């Protein structure tokens, strides 16, 4: 049993490399927050495009559906690789400035921004499906009441449907955020020194996995409270729902 403890819980290594692993985790957190926020927005845009009414918007709906299906069906790792491998050439070929092909905005490296783009493209598609479930879960009478009051489809969406839909989908969106946070580790393959890559570096130097265990603990410090928040929120909403039923 000692060997297990040594390999995974060597407090000496953990202590020595704590700062290095924490720097990696800070990259992970930044990447998660930025890609998470962008995915929330992009997912909502996709979901709204998918809900546009009438024949006129059928092509837009079709494109939105095709996009969502495609990005839900492609591995994130593959998206990361095709973006990082070709973005500089594509941007150059299209005559875009170098800072677009090899973005290093706000003091962040280009792998960071390639990772942000790949995560946003992929998780936007997942979150679009979550929003869609929320929008379609709002009773039809809500849209009818809004339209009967003279609101356009867009106004009704903005003031009546989306606010209710978002409330319903906060738990699944948080779950998607947790999944996104874990998937940021894939950006390590294009040389972003996030927490997993940092742990791996230490692992290959020391032939010991304790730095990775440390990284895992850092993840848990964030993801477990998030999971508890989701549970609390669901319980709270169910309470509300049951009260709602009692009064009608």
């Amino acid at each position, binding site marked *: 049993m000692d060997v297990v403890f040594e390999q995974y819980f060597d407090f000496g290594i953990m202590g020595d490399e704590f700062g290095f692993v924490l720097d990696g985790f800070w990259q992970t957190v930044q990447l998660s927050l930025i890609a998470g926020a962008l995915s929330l927005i992009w997912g909502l845009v996709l979901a709204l495009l998918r809900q546009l009414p009438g024949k006129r918007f059928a092509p837009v709906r079709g494109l939105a559906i095709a996009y969502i299906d495609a990005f839900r069906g492609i591995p994130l790792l593959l998206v990361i690789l095709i973006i990082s491998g070709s973005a500089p050439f594509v941007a150059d070929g299209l005559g875009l400035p170098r800072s677009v092909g090899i973005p290093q905005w706000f003091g962040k490296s280009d792998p960071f921004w390639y990772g942000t783009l790949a995560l946003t493209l992929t998780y936007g598609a997942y979150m679009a499906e979550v929003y869609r479930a929320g929008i379609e879960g709002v009773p039809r009478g809500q849209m009818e009441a809004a*339209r009967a*009051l*003279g609101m356009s489809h867009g106004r009704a969406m903005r*003031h009546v449907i989306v*606010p*209710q839909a978002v409330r319903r989908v906060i738990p699944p969106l948080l779950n998607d955020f947790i999944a996104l946070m874990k998937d940021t580790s894939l950006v390590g393959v294009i040389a972003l020194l996030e927490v997993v890559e940092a742990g791996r570096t230490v692992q290959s130097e020391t032939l010991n996995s304790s730095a990775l265990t440390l990284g895992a603990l850092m993840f848990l410090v964030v993801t477990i409270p998030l999971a508890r928040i989701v549970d609390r929120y669901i319980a709270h909403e169910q309470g509300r729902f049951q009260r*709602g039923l009692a*009064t009608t």
Partner: protein
Amino acid sequence: MLELHGVHKRFGTLEVLRGIDLTVHKGGVVCVIGPSGSGKSTLLRCINLLEPPDEGKIVLEGKEITGGARADDLDYVRRRVGMVFQQFNLFPHKSALENVRLAQEKVLGRSREEATEKAHDLLARVGLSDKADEYPDRLSGGQQQRVAIARALAMDPHVMLFDEVTSALDPELIKEVLDVMRELAAEGMTMVVVTHEMGFARDVANYVVFMDEGVIVEEGPVRRVIDAPREERTKQFLGLVLEH
């Protein structure tokens, strides 16, 4: 002020309305009665274009609203026609006051002050001054429905459509909603009311339409249709409804 000529509505192969002709005069209260599935609700929904008719013509205050440029028609109709639904359809994330205020600001462009004042006036009119800040899930069904009426009235409609507005209510709450509607009628509001409340129809309506299977079977002044129906199907239906 409202005329329907040969209105048809189909859902797939099911023909729900099969040629409806109807005239509603200004200040008139028309009650539409009939069995479930007779097309009463669809008729109301055609009038405000929630379900655009497949055939026929609807004329509102002298302007045809069917068959022209759709967006303009919708705007024209919904500024003149208010609707109240069986399931209230209040916005659950907004308080009673905000429910009544929202469309005034977003559709009519009224200022926050003006919309708030109007909302308070209307809530007072339906007897809910003290509930302005409550959310729908804290209100009884009857209270919710009265807020819904206030919300529709806030748009200054020329015609109000009521779609079985008491059918989802407990019996003891029905009266408070009907009383509000009685008052409205007394003030001269033009109303088209789909209802199973024969007492209300008898007291308030000046014209009754009996529908079955997508057509108007019988229509006329209240006393004539309800108390002395001529058609067999009307007699049958009224016999069933008035029995209990």
